[in-house]
């Protein structure tokens, strides 16, 4: 029983495999579209890399695009500034400490419970009872009490004036409203019993790690949305999503709330070329960056010079051109200059490996032999960079940067992890470098900067720099000052300090990308990069 005669079928199969793999791949399923059943029924099925998770809007585990559909805040942040949402109007007392809101009277929670001042108080109190968790939102540290004045009037009393209060009240979480019937023992911090908000969509069905179905809220105070059904389908990013889009199993994809695109630009372009899809990109919304842990004294990353050298060795032009196909532009500063208060003169650190090497040499990191890892006092110049394993562009950038750093004698280990694990690392300081992004128009600069002092965010990033205490004092000051000129000066100081310390190493300015069916109208963006106004979309006939 030898194997002599096996060979002919084996060779045949091999040929077959080769043939199928090689043959006309270019048309790759262009004709696989003829029954786009999802488009026919006018629903949106979007691909997402992770489950919607616990939708409790007073905590942070849930998916923000999903929460944004179901829950609403008192006010809305728009391009033209703060606009009414659940509150019709508001007054701010002269000392800036008391905010009085008049609520809309025609609003009901999705379980039929009326939305009134009492509900607002219960929600705000529930959030404040867990204030530690929300320390990144400075309002949570300054909100003294919430008082019901009458059925539809509510007043918020602050301990001191705080200029971004309305902006923070407009955010997707935590100051949004859940039906008090869903509270557990009057609280929300250890879980809720349901997810009834006031928003245009309600959660109809959820199968963990498979899908979640949102149905239109026919009683929505702003009018029932045109698209009656939105499904969020969990799909691994990359080719699975691409295929599913091509086949019409999903018909919508967008940049997720951690800034990762489920498709790389080439695949997106291919989908558009095939004719069934359109690609819509928002204005630049954020800055994608590498965050350096300045407080990690055991690693060289805590040295300003090393961080500067890394900054100089990143070729942003090439990243923008080749990895992002020009869809993102190189970023030289933490905030682009069109952001309020961010138009500050900062020295540009151009891409130059020579310059980087020079800085390292001066800092005492010597190259023993060419091509080797630099050392100082017997320590190797080595560090780790964490990236989101769902984002192929982050991985490619990480590999690209790894190579550049190797050229200047820094050994970079790159590690892909789940986005939640990376968020955990950011909070605990267990990292040298990690990918991150500023939080978008609604949050920049005030929330991102406030987050410099928050343990859950960038405390570890900033606390190692020399003038940290002074920096934190200025950050506290800038949030409460009512003098516009002083505010500008303080922001300029803060931005200059973190720029000089090179703790936030900018890479590109990112935007939100939407891949949607060709016949979908009304695609627009919000001021936050974390949610989309689905209620404004409709299908052309």
């Amino acid at each position: 029983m030898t194997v002599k005669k096996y060979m002919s079928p084996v060779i045949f199969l091999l040929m077959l495999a080769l043939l199928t793999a090689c043959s006309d791949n270019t048309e790759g399923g262009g004709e696989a579209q003829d029954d786009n059943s999802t488009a026919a029924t006018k629903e949106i099925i979007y691909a997402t890399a992770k489950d919607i998770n616990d939708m409790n809007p007073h905590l942070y585990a849930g998916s923000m695009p999903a929460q944004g559909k179901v829950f609403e805040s008192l006010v809305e942040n728009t391009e033209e500034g703060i606009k009414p949402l659940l509150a019709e109007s508001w007054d701010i007392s002269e000392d800036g400490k008391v905010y009085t809101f008049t609520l809309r009277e025609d609003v009901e929670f999705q379980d039929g419970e009326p939305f009134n001042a009492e509900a607002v108080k219960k929600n705000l109190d529930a959030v404040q009872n867990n204030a530690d968790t929300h320390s990144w939102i400075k309002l949570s540290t300054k909100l003294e009490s919430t008082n019901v004045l009458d059925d539809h009037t509510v007043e918020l009393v602050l301990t001191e004036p705080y200029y971004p209060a309305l902006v923070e009240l407009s955010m997707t979480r935590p100051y949004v409203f859940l039906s008090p019937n869903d509270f557990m023992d009057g609280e929300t911090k250890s879980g809720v019993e349901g997810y009834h908000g006031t928003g245009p969509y309600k959660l109809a069905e959820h199968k963990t790690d498979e899908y979640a179905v949102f149905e239109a809220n026919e009683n929505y105070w702003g009018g029932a949305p045109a698209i009656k059904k939105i499904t969020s389908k969990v799909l691994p990013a990359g080719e699975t999503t691409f295929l599913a889009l091509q086949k019409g199993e999903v018909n919508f994809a967008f940049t997720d709330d951690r800034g990762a695109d489920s498709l790389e630009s080439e695949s997106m372009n291919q989908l558009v070329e095939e004719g069934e899809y359109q690609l819509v990109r928002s204005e630049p919304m954020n800055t994608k960056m590498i965050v350096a842990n300045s407080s990690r004294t055991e690693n060289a990353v805590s040295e300003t010079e090393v961080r500067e050298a890394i900054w100089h060795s990143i070729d942003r032009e090439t990243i923008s051109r080749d990895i992002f196909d020009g869809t993102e532009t190189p970023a030289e500063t933490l905030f682009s200059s069109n952001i309020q208060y961010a138009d500050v003169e900062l020295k540009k650190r151009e891409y130059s490996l020579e310059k980087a090497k020079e800085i390292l040499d001066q800092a005492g990191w010597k190259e023993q032999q060419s091509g080797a890892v630099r050392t100082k006092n017997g320590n190797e110049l080595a560090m780790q960079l964490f990236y989101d394993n769902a984002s192929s562009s982050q991985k490619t950038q990480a590999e690209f940067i790894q190579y550049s750093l190797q050229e200047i004698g820094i050994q970079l280990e790159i590690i892909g992890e789940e986005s939640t694990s990376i968020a955990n690392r950011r909070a605990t300081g267990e990292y040298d470098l990690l990918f991150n992004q500023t939080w978008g128009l609604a949050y920049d600069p005030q929330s991102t900067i406030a987050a410099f002092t928050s343990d859950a965010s960038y405390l570890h990033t900033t606390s190692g720099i020399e003038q940290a205490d002074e920096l934190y004092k200025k950050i506290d000051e800038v949030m409460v000052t009512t003098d516009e000129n002083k505010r500008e000066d303080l922001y300029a100081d803060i931005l200059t300090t973190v720029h000089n310390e090179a703790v936030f190493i900018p890479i590109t300015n990112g935007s939100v990308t939407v891949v949607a069916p060709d016949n979908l109208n009304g695609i627009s963006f919000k001021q936050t990069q974390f949610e989309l106004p689905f209620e404004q979309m409709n299908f052309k006939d």
Partner: protein
Amino acid sequence: MKMLLNLRQDKIGFLSSIVIFVTIMLGVFAPFFAPHDPNQVNMSLRYAPSSMEYLLGNDHLGRCILSRLIIGIRPSVLWVLAALGVSVLIGAALGFLAGYFRGKIDTVIMRMCDTMLSFPGYVMALAIIGVLGVGLQNILIAFILIKWAWFARIIRTSVLQYAELDYVKFAKAPGIKDLQIIYKHLFPLTFSDIAVIASSSMGSMILQISGFSFLGLGIQAPNAEWGMMLNEAREVMFTRPELMLAPGLAIVIVVSAFNFLSDSLQVALNPALSTGQKRSKQESLSTEKKEVLMK
């Protein structure tokens, strides 16, 4: 020697050994054979098609795919081979101990084996990666932890069988040292069994390690590994399917070679087996069950 002779007569076995030999040589002298630095990034060549200079084209960072394929032999094949070697060594040592001396040692070793074997291979590997973190060496550690028990068990069985042979028994009588008996008489006899098992599990190990790398749990950048190359190619699978081809075929060819070799070895070493000579039910059952569990 006879084994090699037998093997020579079997063309497929012969061909397989040549493929394996060439692969190993390519891997050992990879820097010499690789036309370019496998980690040389060149963004202007991103996804460049095959050319005279870069025979298999370039990947998403403009690196030479051919060079990465060649350097990738090291983690994909050589390190797996090394892990296999270590687990065979441990397994052989313990298997000989247990099978030759019997008694308490035997019981203890076999209980240890049983315990290790209660963890399915994949699960054990995932557990170890989970605790120690992702990386090639952790998967190799997991492999060694799992496989030694199999080898110990199988080697023990064949030692038991051969220790009953008359001339081994005779050798014991005049007081020849145990070690000498094992080395001179038992080892050559059991060697063939070891070779067959080792070569047959090699194929599945290569597949598993590439699978883990494919999931992003294995080797970390910038090192090249075939499963990792497939993972990278998967991102653009439907826009550039040709990238899936080279690493995939490399795995298929090498794994096939190991599988065919193992089959030929089995025939060459134990002709009786293939002619379907009588074996007791129990015996055939136990070997078959083992063979299946090894995968």
